[in-house]
């Protein structure tokens, strides 16, 4: 146990700003704790201040307003994976949540924590990047701002969040009719696996529901942070959803690995594994899969 650490548990955004004003570089924000509690235990660090976000009112909800889907930062993976709004409108995020860790982890881990921790293999981050989500931040000044999710991810890995900022919500436009999404990951086992590759794909179909008119895809666990790959997504435009997975899509995924990690020792493995991931995503998208039918892939 650590002594000398002050605990604050803000209940609303005003109290959160008040708490953030007292934060220093040695302070910690605590959501579900599934990342931070391990860091604390291994580093022996003594935070001067612990801001417990778990009591924040209204931060564990999903709602639609003004054409936007809004997800509170304290929604747990277990809640995300079964939320009907996400299952219907952002299946890639629900599927990603369903494949995070174990049930014990999913019952505690939050979407805000997953983004703030900014691991290169963070599953929810990849889905949020594909969704073009924006994060709502509360600062110590009391000012609330919105930032694209990518701006929270540092180029060399980790988060750009300041010690006096907290994520309270994520939002993105409700998808159009005919839009489908899917998430896939490859780990060393079928459950409780850190992603060695992950991807989130979003497509839009034409009025007949037959041809892909638009596509977006984001990848994680390749570079130091998740990123969109426009050239890969472009290979899907014009493809028939009922057809086989376009070879151009698969090939471009492998080329993506080649140019992203040319000297990494994992490149030979990942350039092969991503072909399987591409095929998995195609199968999920083609089936119009809901989150309940997604299963993680083994290596």
């Amino acid at each position: 146990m650590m002594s000398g650490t002050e605990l604050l548990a803000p209940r609303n955004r005003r109290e959160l700003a008040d708490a953030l004003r007292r934060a220093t570089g040695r302070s910690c924000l605590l959501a579900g704790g599934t990342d931070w509690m391990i860091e604390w235990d291994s580093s022996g660090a003594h935070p001067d201040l612990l801001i417990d976000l778990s009591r924040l009112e209204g931060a564990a909800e999903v709602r639609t307003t003004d054409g936007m889907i809004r997800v509170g930062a304290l929604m747990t993976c277990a809640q995300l994976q079964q939320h009907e709004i996400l299952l219907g409108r952002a299946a890639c995020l629900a599927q990603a949540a369903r494949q995070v860790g174990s049930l014990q982890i999913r019952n505690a881990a939050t979407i805000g924590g997953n983004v703030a921790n900014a691991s290169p293999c963070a599953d929810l981050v990849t889905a949020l990047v594909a969704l073009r989500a924006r994060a709502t931040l509360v600062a110590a000044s009391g000012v609330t701002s919105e930032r694209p999710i990518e701006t929270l991810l540092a180029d060399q890995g980790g988060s750009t969040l300041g010690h006096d900022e907290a994520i309270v919500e994520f939002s993105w436009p409700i998808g159009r009719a005919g839009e489908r999404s899917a998430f896939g990951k490859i780990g060393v086992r079928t459950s409780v696996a850190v992603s060695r590759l992950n991807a989130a794909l979003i497509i839009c179909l034409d009025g007949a529901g037959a041809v892909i008119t638009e596509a977006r895809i984001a990848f994680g666990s390749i570079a130091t942070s998740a990123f969109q790959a426009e050239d890969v997504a472009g290979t899907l435009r014009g493809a028939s959803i009922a057809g086989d997975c376009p070879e151009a899509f698969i090939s471009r995924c492998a080329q993506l690995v080649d140019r992203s990690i040319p000297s990494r020792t994992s490149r030979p493995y990942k350039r092969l594994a991503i072909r399987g991931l591409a095929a998995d995503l195609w199968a999920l998208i083609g089936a119009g899969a809901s989150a309940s039918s997604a299963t993680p892939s083994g290596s």
Partner: protein
Amino acid sequence: MRLTATVNGASIAVEVAANARLVDVLRDALGLTGTKVGCAAGECGACTVLIDGRAVNACLVAAAQVEGRVVLTVEGLARGGELDRLQRKFVEMGAIQCGFCTPGLLMSATALLARVPHPSRAEIATAIAGNLCRCTGYAAIIEAIEAAADEAVAR
């Protein structure tokens, strides 16, 4: 800080450090050593307890976040000295060898059966995916959970 919560049906109030782990409070402050520390990283599930009915790794929960919540540990399963149905089935069906993983597995299974009284094998596998056992190979564990569910449904 002073932590107040309900643990195994009883109200408790203990002084804890601001960033104390729940598993340490349970074991050291409350003497509930049934909950084990295996990996201390949320990977083995030996420390699984229920908070408000949901299975979590107690090694990853800050005790302060349990304020006002309801916690159930393995010690809370038996009633009046009588093992509960899951515990009996684990014993009867050889689902326990060294026993270190058993408390965590019992808690994961308890949470499952409370939500899904008659789970499929796939649902059982998902529920216990975060509990590692080095001894049994899991078959007897899954069969014990099935048997407990079957017996409960039959009554």
